[in-house]
């Protein structure tokens, strides 16, 4: 039995990276996964780094001082943006998974994109001017 071309399979994994022929919902899904991977990476970094807390006050406070470096601030901004998008889109998925607001999916998605952009701008300003 042949599977229709849009079904997941290991044979056409490279189609994940083909930007053609994808609709808005596909991009929402792809962004959700990309932000998920980014956040997962951050999660494990975060857990390791919190080990500094366990060592003691000096280790932790030294580490906190290092975090003022703009590279780290930028990294944290990426985490914030990813978190906002992933959370809001996740809410959209949760709603539609239970059959709520399905005909309005597109509007909800555009709305959450706008919120993500606004949130990103707000935190970018806040984090780089503190």
């Amino acid at each position: 039995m042949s599977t229709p071309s849009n079904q997941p399979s290991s044979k056409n994994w490279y189609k994940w990276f083909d930007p053609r022929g994808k609709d808005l919902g596909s991009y929402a899904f792809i962004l959700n996964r990309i932000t998920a991977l980014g956040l997962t990476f951050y999660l494990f970094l975060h857990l390791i780094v919190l080990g500094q807390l366990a060592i003691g006050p000096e280790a932790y406070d030294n580490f906190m001082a290092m975090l003022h470096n703009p590279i780290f601030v930028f990294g944290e901004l990426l985490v914030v943006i990813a978190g906002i998008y992933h959370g809001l889109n996740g809410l959209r998925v949760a709603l539609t998974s239970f059959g709520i607001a399905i005909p309005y999916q597109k509007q909800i998605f555009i709305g959450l994109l706008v919120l993500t952009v606004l949130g990103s701008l707000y935190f970018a300003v806040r984090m780089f001017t503190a």
Partner: protein
Amino acid sequence: MLATKSTPKSGEGMWLWLIKIASGILIILLLLLHFIVNHTGLISITENGLLTHEGVVQYYSNPLIPLIEILFLVFVVSHSLIGLRSIVLDLKPSRSLLKGINWVFGIVGVVAIVYGIWLVFQILSFLPA
């Protein structure tokens, strides 16, 4: 965008899917709290956020806090690993490979949670008796 329901994928049973959604919603709530505590002065103990070791230890003096933090960790690790597994499922692994993958995710999850609980107790050990 199709006006169709989002449905669970094969290989991911109903419970994992449900836990993923439930943990996701709980994470949003707990993350809000986590952010307010760590980065704002809205809760009196934390002044400008938890910026020093001493601040963190003091925050943990309320026994509700370690409990909430551990729950937060469990939700985040579960959500993350179930989600990673969903991505892997799209590569259609064979049944035996999937079993191996399940074990790896399970062990990583347990290790992460145990480590996190150990961390919480390390922080608590700094509290004056």
